[in-house]
């Protein structure tokens, strides 16, 4: 069985590198697809542009979505995702710097499955990513591929 992929939506290359490093340190070897802004993330998810001929059956197991993104921000990506009948059930973890109240509220309201603030302390960050991986890739059963179509 093919390992489920992770969609990391992150514009900051430092954060991208550190996240990948943290994943690696936690022995999470699933494929990580990186989208560097909201548009790219949506192209991937809706199979547009560069990702037009992507295999539809290969949906990511979890999307690690930053909020502050160029072009289209993370919360807008989440809203469009939840508005689409094929993608509305995909697990989305908001992984961001802020713990601004408005972000938390808006994130959960738009249907985020989890909200994690990236700690500055890298040691803590690694621990957070470990727990994330364990939970979403191992413990959590993703929704069936065709579940979104069923009422």
């Amino acid at each position: 069985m093919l390992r489920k992929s992770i969609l990391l939506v992150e514009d900051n290359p430092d954060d991208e590198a550190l996240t990948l490093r943290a994943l690696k340190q936690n022995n999470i070897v699933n494929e990580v697809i990186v989208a560097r802004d909201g548009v790219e993330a949506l192209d991937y998810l809706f199979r547009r542009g560069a990702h037009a001929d992507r295999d539809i059956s290969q949906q990511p197991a979890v999307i690690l979505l930053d909020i502050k993104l160029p072009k289209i921000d993370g919360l807008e990506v989440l809203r469009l995702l939840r508005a689409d009948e094929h993608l509305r059930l995909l697990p989305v973890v908001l992984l961001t710097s802020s713990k601004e109240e408005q972000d938390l509220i808006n994130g959960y309201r738009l249907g985020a499955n989890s909200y994690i603030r990236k700690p500055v302390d890298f040691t803590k960050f690694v621990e957070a990513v470990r727990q994330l991986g364990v939970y979403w890739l191992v413990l959590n059963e993703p929704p069936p591929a065709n579940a979104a179509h069923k009422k």
Partner: protein
Amino acid sequence: MTTLTKLRDILASFIGHSLFRWAVLSLAVVAVIATAAYNYRDIDGDLTAVALSRREAVAQLMAVTLTEKFGRVTDVAISLSARVKFRDLVAQGKWGEAIEIMRSVPQDFPHIERLFLTDAKGTLKADMPALPSARGLNFSSHDWFRGVSRDWQPYVSSVYRRVVVPQFNVVAVAVPVKSMTGQVAGILVLHIRIEKLLEWVAGIDMGKDAFVYIVDSKGQMALDSRHQSREKIIDLSATAVVQKLRRGEQGVEIGFDAMGQEESIIAYAVVPGYGWGVVVQQPTRTSMALTARDEQLRRLLVGYGLILLLGAMTAFLTLRIVSARQRAEGDVRFITIVNTATDAIISVDQDQRIVLFNYGAEVIFGYNAAEIIGQPLNRLLPTRFGEIHRHHMQNFAAAPKTSRFMEERREILGRRKDGTEFPAEASISKLTEQGRIFFTAILRDVTERKRIEEEIRSLNANLERKVIERTAELASANKELEAFSYSVSHDLRAPLRAIDGFSQALLEDYSAKLDDQARDYLGRVRAASQHMAELIDDMLNLARVTRATMQPAPVDLSALAASIAGELRQTQPERAVEFVIQPGLSAEGDAKLMHILLTNLLSNAWKFTGKQEHARIEFGAQRDNEVPAYFVRDNGAGFDMKYADKLFSVFQRLHAINEFPGTGVGLATVQRIVHRHGGRAWAEGAVGLGATFYFTVSPEPAQATA
């Protein structure tokens, strides 16, 4: 200035016609009339009495005259009868010789008509002048005989008609003729024609239209001055006046006599010694005295009339003088008021011509009084309003006049000499005098007031706009701050994460190539970046506290403190800290901010008791004042009171960071929260003896007034 004069006249006459003056005048008139009436009555009575007493005097004078005449005739008769020779001849019965002695008597005494002699039995023996038919007649039944023979004393008879022809009415005076021995020898009788009596009293002025009648001792009318030739002797003994006379009374009265047809003064007097009476009668109408009385009374009335007239004139003149004085004072006052008034006072006549233009009007309109008086009023009005104004004034003039000062206030536009227009507030009065209507307008230039009102309006509008602007600015500033915080929250932490993360990567991936010092340095880089992350978080919290919307509600502080204490225990389960929390404390406040507040204070206490073997943290409240002061007390490191005022400033720290970690933002946050609730925060403490942090969450009375 015609209207000025009119106004003044009206003012003065108003003062002149005061009720008081009328009352005084009326009193004076009444007093004069009363005096006149009294005097009239008095003088009327006096003059009537005078008139009557004069009639009475006339009657008495006549009566006395008659007495005297009767007495004289009697005396003549006695002296004639007393002649010795005559007595002898009579005694001897020589009647013819005796009467001859008397021959000259009728010539000597013209009032004696004739005389005759009778014997003692009353038989006529001789007469002079001789009437042969009479000789031998006996007169014993006659009144004179009965009278003289009663006691042989001289006697004046009542009136009777002479027996012998020619017959006429006479009065007889009879005296006895006595012999030398005293025997009555005969009787001498003298006849007096009754008309003689009238002659006797003719010299007495009775007054106009007066008449007299003489009543004899039997009550018969002897003589009536109006009917001297009356032959019939009328018996008046039944009349009231004659009865009074026969009773011996005399006097005067006003009344109707039996014979008289009109009211008369009737004076009556007794002729003493003879039983006769005199009645003088005069119609009241022609009584000279009463006429005089009436004349006098008329004069009196005229006099009083003159007095009244003079009084009235005096009063009138006095009033005129007083009014003139008041008018003069009024004028001075009025002119002073008119001239010193800063309001324009303008009067126009019925034809809308200006008749009064005061100094205020000159200042406001820019015209001299001299050049504008006599000009039409619409010179002072904007041309476009002239017609409307004229209509208005006509309506006002025609309006029913309920009072002399009909007033209305309204805003109009005025036109100055230079043509500029200005808003004015005017009150207009209408005066009607001698059928002419005058209007007086008191007018105020309200340009300045309008300008100020406009300014206030504009200021208010500005203020409102500014408030809106400021509110918008504030809102926008808040938004910016929010955006800033948001940005800080997101963007400032990312580099720190990179610093910390890659430092760690270095330590992990290149540890073999790094010596201890390099590793130490990297460790410091990481610590610094983590501390900065904490600072950023605290700063964001502080900002959040400042801009958060308050939702005050009762907050259970005791429960909140207990909950926070539980969280603190979890962070360092190994520490044994005693929490003493006073139960039942609650306050009105924003729950979220209260949470941040207590978290900060309790965390502080937790932190600064970190080196205490027996840490004790207390939460309670003091109720020394109306407003409770809550406190968090610890037995930790404490602080020096001389830095107490610095405790609540941002980034102020009293301890080295390696001794007690922290950012210096926590107490600043506490203070901001209590300030937002209207309260205050303060601290007490000593180095090594712990600290107590107090706070209130509502205004204290002293502060409230400050």
